[in-house]
């Protein structure tokens, strides 16, 4: 708290109402004035370039007012790979007003919009979305997101890197509906055990959940190659050359890495977000959204299927400036306009105010995105090793109620207590048996019992960390793979879990999960922007929350029975 005046200074009398307002959680949040010269501005800066393009002999020789000789590597990459040179001059000639109207007009198809966007430069795209208010941005997202059916992604981590906690919270997350589960570590050497726990737990709650372990690029790729994880996301890109280089990468190294993942049949998306360049100290005087649009175009040029954006870990930066959350909604929309899968943020502690946390979510939840959160915390935020999410396990019932109130699908559902306890116990038992089978550190019956009923890492017996780290090392030294996990689960009587995991591994052979916005249904059918393409064309079309799914989302923890008001249904 910084509102108290130093002792000894005379204190001006404030009203009793002001005292109450001063104590409201929102006043613990940080807010700053815009500073466009340093890039501390959301999306309206006099220092952003004017749109423009010039093509000579099939080559872009001028981009947004900059001649080719002055291109930095982002300009070079975008001009060579991201912009459709055959159509760019025609597309750039369409007025920004007209393009913005095409985006929100249900009579203009998604494909027609994509055809124009393919030829636009970063400054032109900025010029288009700057015309749109937040409701228009949502209307655009409803039509432009790639997959018709929205989904959600969770974090499953542990403040003690306890693999049992990660497994059971993954299982609970899976049964609650998350399509993807992501973990990361406090102690990186724990990664192999925790990644195995996530992979096993994720297949207990329901089949077909995809998992990843966020680590340094090379290690993350190695776990994926071994089949211990199913997809990857922590492949960061930046909007200025200097910050990109500070991240020890270039558009070409990241493009090579994208192909490396695909060559192993592993789904992958890049990560970027407004505010990262100003946070890393070199925004080159450009607005946050202009730089993010460069990232989005770079991702399209690399041929990666999708992008995690929406400021992500830098949300405090756009969150502090005027219009910042509108800019965050706009960056998700631009990723969809560029025909990329979008995992749309809402994955980082953002505000002390619950009202602000929910308001920040609305532009993604209401229209739906490919993944509404790119990390809803499926553990209490104190256990969230991504530094906390915008929503955590305490918010499950609120989330389910908001879905029911507004009849929108945020990817989750209410699950009965006995079902949750059953999947938690089964995940713990499966991991216990697998660790014993693979000669990894013991999981005791007391730990299984604790895991079944636990909330946070404090509710589990302490592990022998040194023994766990030795076990983790042996996973790498022995070269254990996803197939070894399947074999171990089958040998120890967890046939259904083994079968689910084998089915996920088999997906690699077909490459179906490499296409844009791909997830697996609980029946293991790949669902992507190809066989579930967004066909929104106005009221009554596109994804509608109805039928069996709507009946499921009507259920909450406490709902009074209509036939017997003395009882509850759930």
């Amino acid at each position: 708290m910084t509102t108290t005046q130093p002792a000894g200074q005379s204190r001006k009398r404030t009203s009793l109402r002001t005292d109450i307002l001063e104590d409201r959680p929102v006043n613990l949040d940080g807010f700053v004035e815009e500073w466009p010269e340093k890039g501390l501005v959301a999306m309206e800066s006099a220092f952003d370039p004017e749109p423009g393009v010039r093509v000579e002999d099939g080559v872009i020789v001028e981009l947004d007012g900059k001649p080719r000789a002055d291109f930095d590597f982002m300009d070079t990459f975008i001009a060579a790979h991201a912009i459709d040179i055959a159509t760019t001059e025609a597309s750039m000639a369409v007025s920004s007003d007209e393009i913005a109207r095409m985006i929100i007009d249900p009579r203009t198809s998604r494909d027609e919009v994509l055809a124009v966007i393919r030829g636009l430069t970063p400054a032109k795209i900025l010029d288009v979305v700057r015309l749109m208010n937040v409701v228009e941005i949502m209307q655009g997202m409803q039509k432009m997101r790639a997959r018709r059916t929205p989904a959600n992604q969770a974090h499953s981590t542990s403040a003690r890197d306890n693999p049992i906690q990660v497994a059971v919270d993954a299982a609970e997350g899976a049964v609650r509906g998350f399509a993807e589960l992501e973990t990361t570590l406090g102690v990186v050497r724990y990664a192999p055990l925790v990644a195995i726990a996530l992979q096993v737990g994720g297949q207990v709650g329901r089949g077909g959940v995809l998992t990843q372990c966020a680590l340094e690029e090379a290690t993350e790729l190695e776990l994926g190659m071994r089949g211990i994880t199913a997809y990857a996301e922590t492949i960061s890109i930046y909007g200025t050359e200097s910050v990109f280089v500070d991240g020890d990468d270039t558009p070409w190294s990241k493009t090579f890495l994208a192909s490396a993942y695909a060559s192993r049949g592993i789904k992958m998306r890049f990560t970027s977000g407004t505010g990262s360049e100003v946070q890393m100290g070199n925004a080159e005087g450009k607005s946050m959204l202009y730089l993010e649009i460069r990232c989005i175009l770079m991702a399209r040029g690399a041929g990666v299927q999708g992008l995690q954006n929406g400021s992500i870990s830098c949300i405090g930066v756009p969150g502090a400036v005027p219009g910042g959350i509108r800019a965050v909604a706009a960056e998700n929309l631009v990723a969809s306009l560029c025909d990329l899968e979008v995992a749309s943020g809402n994955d980082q502690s953002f505000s002390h105010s619950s009202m602000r946390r929910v308001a920040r979510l609305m532009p993604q939840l209401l229209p739906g995105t490919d993944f509404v959160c790119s990390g809803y915390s499926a553990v209490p935020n104190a256990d969230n090793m991504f530094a906390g999410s915008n929503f955590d396990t305490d918010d499950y019932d609120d989330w389910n109620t908001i879905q029911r109130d507004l009849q929108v699908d945020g990817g989750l559902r209410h699950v009965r207590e006995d079902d949750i306890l059953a999947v938690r116990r089964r995940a713990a038992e499966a991991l216990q048996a697998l660790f014993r089978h693979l000669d990894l550190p013991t999981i005791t019956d007391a730990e299984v019992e604790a895991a079944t009923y636990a909330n946070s890492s404090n509710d589990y017996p302490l592990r022998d960390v040194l023994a766990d780290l030795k076990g983790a090392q042996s996973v790498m030294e022995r070269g254990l793979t996803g197939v070894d996990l399947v074999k171990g689960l089958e040998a120890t009587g967890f046939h259904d879990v083994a079968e689910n995991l084998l089915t996920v591994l088999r997906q690699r052979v077909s490459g179906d999960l490499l296409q844009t916005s791909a997830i697996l249904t609980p029946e293991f059918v790949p669902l992507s922007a190809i066989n579930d393409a967004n066909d929104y064309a106005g009221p009554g079309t596109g994804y509608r929350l109805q039928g069996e799914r709507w009946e499921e989302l009507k259920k909450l923890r406490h709902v009074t029975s209509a036939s017997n008001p003395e009882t509850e249904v759930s």
Partner: protein
Amino acid sequence: MTASTSRAPLTTADYPLSVNRPDLLRTPTGKALSELTMDAVVSGALTAADVRIAPETLLLQAEIADAARRPQLAANFRRAAEMTAIPDAEVLLMYNALRPRASSAEQLDALAERLEGEYGATACAALVREAAEVYGRRDLLARPEQD
């Protein structure tokens, strides 16, 4: 590494291949999807080498990406098809060689030569040559050792 030329190009209706066109899918070890069973895992007939993607499959997915009007995604799949031949450890070394100021112009040239000569990876080699040109212009080649 060209897909069979006797059939019509794939369309988006062929997706997902695992459901609609399993007949076209083989592991790099020559097995059909239907052979990847639990019995095969238990007997040891199925190993980690069998749950990898074949270059031919990546080219099929590239056809579908092209049909879905995603040419950059298709190009990514074609580079990936070339990369299936490169061992895991070498892929990681090549990625690291492309990081800023990690390689000299000569080293990047040698990398492109190796991709082309050893692995027939012409699209990957072109990407490396393009990087080398840009790195030279933007001071991102390895700096000579200081005395």
